[in-house]
């Protein structure tokens, strides 16, 4: 087990102190600029005077070191709510398929995946009894490990759900992070990925198929901290009704990180007048020899493709469904033939 990785996790007290210091999320905070922050209930531990409470924290600066670096409310919330960490080690060279399911509103999973391990990890919805759920996953990935993390759960009507991932990748490791969201209420998935070792690769694919009043938000920050690290982001959205999606994706390339390659692409099809998408790409590049791209398309179903299908006798509604399904399936087509791909394609 990577001791340093575990020791750097904040305690509940540290998380509460940090949350009090940060205060509740506001729209003028760039982490939450697209999120309907007014819908987040204030936790009891926040008290009424956040600043005073923060000053009163008994933790020493050294003890608070890890906690004070964390600035995302959603990452701290499960720990502050005393989610007991489920700590698991997958040893070097192991091959494993797992399903993760929290048994409470607030969950915290800590995984330490050894060198060269091959892991397929499906995240199931947690058992929720209240109006808010928050899960945090801290995943440390050893050299040359191959890991897929995915979730494609049935549509959930939970009023508010957060999922936060901290991922650290060593040299030569690969992570494929893929998800489908059909939830009907408000949610946010945030990912912080640190590509710490040379040649590490992070592949992110998300698909939102939303209708009604759904409001789903993604925030990614990928830190390229070593040479020749690569990352791919592909987010696709099919939005109907008054559904709303935001995608806030940052790529940060550090000093001396030569040969980095990163791409980000967001494609959205709006099926109704009231559906909307907000996209914010951020690139911070501190080295010359890198290749980083980003793109964003928003549109309707392709009129020529619709005409072609209908002109062969296929009813308009069925043709629309065919095109939507193909748009959705293309998100995951490039994935290798693994359990994740099978599951995701079947859900589409």
């Amino acid at each position, binding site marked *: 087990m990577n001791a340093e990785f575990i020791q750097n996790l904040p305690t509940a007290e540290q998380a509460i102190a940090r949350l009090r210091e940060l205060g509740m999320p506001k729209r003028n905070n760039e982490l939450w600029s697209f999120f309907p922050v007014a819908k987040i209930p204030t936790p009891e531990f926040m008290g009424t005077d956040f600043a005073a409470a923060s000053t009163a924290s008994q933790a020493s600066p050294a003890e608070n070191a890890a906690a004070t670096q964390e600035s995302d409310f959603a990452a701290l919330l499960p720990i502050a709510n005393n989610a007991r960490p489920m700590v698991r080690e997958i040893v070097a060279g192991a091959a494993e398929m797992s399903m993760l399911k929290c048994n409470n509103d607030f969950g915290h999973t800590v995984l330490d995946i050894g060198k060269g391990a091959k892991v397929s990890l499906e995240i199931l919805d947690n058992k929720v009894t209240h109006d808010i759920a928050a899960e945090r996953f801290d995943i440390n990935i050893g050299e040359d490990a191959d890991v897929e993390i995915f979730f494609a759960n049935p549509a959930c009507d939970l009023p508010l759900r957060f999922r936060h991932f901290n991922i650290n990748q060593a040299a030569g490791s690969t992570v494929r992070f893929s998800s489908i969201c059909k939830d009907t209420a408000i949610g946010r998935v945030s990912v912080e990925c640190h590509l710490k070792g040379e040649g590490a690769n992070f592949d992110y694919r998300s698909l939102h198929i939303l209708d009604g009043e759904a409001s789903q938000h993604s925030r990614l920050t990928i830190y390229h901290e070593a040479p020749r690290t690569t990352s791919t982001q592909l987010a696709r959205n099919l939005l109907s009704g008054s559904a709303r999606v935001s995608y806030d994706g940052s790529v940060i390339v550090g000093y001396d990180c030569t040969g980095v390659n990163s791409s980000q692409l967001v494609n959205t099809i709006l099926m109704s007048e009231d559906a909307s998408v907000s996209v914010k790409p951020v690139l911070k590049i501190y080295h010359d020899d890198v290749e980083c791209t980003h793109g964003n398309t928003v549109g309707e179903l392709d*009129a*020529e*493709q619709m*005409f*072609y*299908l*209908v*002109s*062969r*006798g*296929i*009813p*308009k509604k*069925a*043709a629309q469904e*065919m*095109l939507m*399904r*193909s*748009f959705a*399936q*293309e998100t995951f*087509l490039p994935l290798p033939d693994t359990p994740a791909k099978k599951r995701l394609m079947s859900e589409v």
Partner: protein
Amino acid sequence: MLSIKNLKASIEDGTQILKGINLEVKPGEVHAIMGPNGSGKSTLSKVIAGHPAYRVDGGSVELDGKNLLEMEINERANSGLFISTQYPTEIPGVNNVEFLKMALNSKRAFLGLPEMGDAEFKQLCEEKMNLLEMDERYRERGVNDGMSGGEKKRNEILQMAILDPKVSFLDETDSGLDIDALRIVANGINHIMSPEKAVILVTHYQRLLDYIKPTYVHVLRHGKIILSGGPELALKLEDQGYDWIEEAK
């Protein structure tokens, strides 16, 4: 069978492309439409199919006595009309075979026939693919996705063979075909053709008409059919071009 009377149509900016087309097509006939670029040949096929980029300003198009212009696009197809455009649209992600099966069963539902099952469809598909000398890769690919121009045209004729339309309007099906592919596609069309069906071919060249013998040849220019004749007209056009028609008037 297909009766087009005084058909006029324009594009969104109001420019009229078709200025009064008249054409009568009877069962068993093959009509070839020729004409210079920009004369309205492709527009004619798209207007008949119901493409939303065109507005019908007047006239009628009847298939077996039913006004196609009053039907939805899919109803026109299911009533027996098949249009193959000059540049078949690519639809990545929609599997070729699933699309074909959906199209066929949509037509069968329209005609009140039961859905064709997997085994029967597979057999039908194999038969028609063999006719067009198509290999198994077509099954796995998206509709026209990444296909060469010739492969797309062959795929169009496969659709025609499976959907078995009464009237097929094939717009420059010979473009992009090499010599062997032209022969295969033309043989396929001849095989599908029967005394109960009709084909309208839009082409620039005699070479397709060497394989598919037209009953009539028409010249479309400036949105109107300005001359009609027998197969010999195509040979004359190939030899002399179109200017002599205007000069003779």
